[in-house]
């Protein structure tokens, strides 16, 4: 298994600069997730690591070997694509074995590895089928199997769950987590879904506008985001941002409070508002409060509560959890009290 090191990666398409100097070290066996809104450059970065795209400048090192100019097949990587990208004219067995065959691996060895991988993914009974005869979830498992048999230094996943329905997505997510524990392979995983990022990652890299906004463990990003973008991107529902002036606070430009760090009270609190909408999700619920100057506030509560639309309520912030941002969106020291 391998480590990965990116040094000052720049990438431009014509005049458009997509990646503006990415530096990153990934350790052996780590599960790193690139997350960001669409167009942030995360997929391009993954393609540069894979060798499917050339970096305009900068170096890619896998296992301390400079692979910047090495073709994809020789980098010791395997990739799982969003659209599965299985070869339509080959059986599952041949789909998994093709890469090894191209590399000149012995037949017995290929058969062995395909068997191991198909057992691991419970695909044994489908080996003779073609991709068209498989369901979406099975196809994605074949794609993962194709990656496993190569025994790569580095696993690359490009939004592998986006084409699956919600139930299958959760199941496949668990499967990927289990596989990573079993194989302990270094993994780079690209997604725009922050839930996938939070549940799978050892470390998350948040990208925006071609720049790394923050690198950290899921809880680090949740608890202490370095800027307003990361604060807003991680966590669902999104963090509430309130203009400091609207609530009479000085020293910061914007105040951020997560919906789950607000409680409501009928009598007194930090901010008064009227209930504009209520969403019941079963275990928890979201409450939308229209507060005159501060705008709409989302409050997340657990359990089942009843509120009338238009009812007046007071929101009370969890003082220790509120964050302050300066005019540039950087996190600054702040206390609500």
């Amino acid at each position, binding site marked *: 298994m391998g480590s990965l090191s990116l040094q000052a990666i720049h990438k431009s398409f014509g005049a458009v600069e997509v990646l503006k100097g990415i530096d990153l070290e990934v350790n052996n066996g780590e599960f790193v997730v690139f997350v960001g809104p669409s167009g942030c450059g995360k997929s391009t970065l993954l393609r540069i690591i894979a060798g*499917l795209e050339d970096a305009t400048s900068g170096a890619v090192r896998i296992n301390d070997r400079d692979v910047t100019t090495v073709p994809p097949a020789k980098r010791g990587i395997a990739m799982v694509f969003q659209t599965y990208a299985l070869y339509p004219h080959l059986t599952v067995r041949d789909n998994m074995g093709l*890469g090894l065959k191209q590399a000149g691996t012995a037949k017995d060895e290929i058969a062995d590895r395909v068997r191991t991988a198909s057992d691991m993914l419970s695909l044994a009974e489908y080996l003779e089928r073609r991709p068209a005869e498989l369901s979406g979830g099975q196809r994605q498992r074949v794609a993962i199997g194709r990656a496993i048999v190569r025994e790569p230094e580095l696993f690359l996943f490009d939004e592998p769950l986006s084409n699956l329905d919600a139930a299958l997505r959760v199941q496949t997510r668990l499967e990927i987590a289990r596989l990573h524990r079993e194989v302990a392979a270094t993994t780079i995983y690209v997604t725009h879904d922050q839930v996938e990022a939070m549940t799978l990652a050892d470390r998350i890299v948040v990208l925006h506008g071609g720049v790394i906004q923050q690198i950290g463990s899921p809880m680090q990003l949740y608890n202490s985001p370095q800027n307003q973008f990361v604060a807003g991107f991680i966590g669902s529902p999104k963090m509430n941002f309130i203009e400091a002036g609207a609530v009479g606070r000085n020293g910061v430009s914007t105040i951020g409070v997560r919906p789950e760090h607000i409680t409501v009270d009928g009598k007194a609190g930090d901010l008064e508002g009227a209930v504009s909408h209520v969403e019941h999700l079963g275990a928890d619920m979201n409450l939308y409060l229209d507060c005159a100057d501060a705008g709409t506030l989302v409050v997340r509560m657990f359990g089942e509560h009843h509120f009338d639309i238009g009812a007046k309520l007071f929101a009370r912030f969890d003082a220790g959890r509120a964050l302050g941002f300066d005019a540039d969106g950087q996190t600054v020291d702040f206390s609500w009290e």
Partner: protein
Amino acid sequence: MSVARHSNVGSFAAHAILATYTVIALFPVIVIVVNSFKTRKAIFRSPLSPPDGETFSLIGYETVMAQGDFVLYFQNSLIVTVVALALVLLFGAMAAFALSEYRFRGNMLMGLYLALGIMIPIRLGTVAIMQMMVAAGLVPTLTALILVYTAQGLPLAIFILSEFMRTVSDDLKDAGRIDGLSEYRIFFRLVLPLVRPALATVAVFTMIPIWNDLWFPLLLASAEETKTVTLGAQVFIGQFVTNWNAVLAALSLAILPVLVLYIVFSRQLISGITAGAVK
């Protein structure tokens, strides 16, 4: 399946229009085939009536067969059509792959340049082509025809195929690259099978004008041993006397091979379409 918009009147009108068009399109073909089985007198007396016991005659076909060289003419036509078709499909698909797959400077301009031939008929360049072929010592040979027809077929082939190849999943090609397939293997093993319906379409559009062409065989391959069927049929058309039986018989025979090729390709076309639909 009944659709809410379905109306008997509309459906009848649509079928009437289609039927009228079919009749108009098939009429000349049927007249040729029907009359090729009649005596010369019957052809002129009642050109539209089918042959009966009295007017039935195979004299046209006998003349064509007795002329002797028609097997050779057929062979020439087939060689020219099949080789030119193969070259158009191969080079057209390769150029289309390069245009749709690789980002390089001048990609757009190159695509436009290669598609220009759709708008400019190749016959405008006849004099220059003639001079070039004579200088190269290729008149009269089948090679000259094959070269001209390849050039004639490429623009449309590249235009259609590059549009289709853009629809082939990038991920699939990238998966091939990661598995260590060469660009040629990706092209031949992954992309070509997926654009098979488009290949069949291009094959049909390329093949028919080549088979039916009279112009270039007349200029570039008018020697006896290089004549094609359409050119060969001209021996029966004289300045003063035309052997209509033989002309019609030769034309009827000329329809057959192209019909067979068309059926072969249209099978491909349909199987390609349904394979995509149920994926």
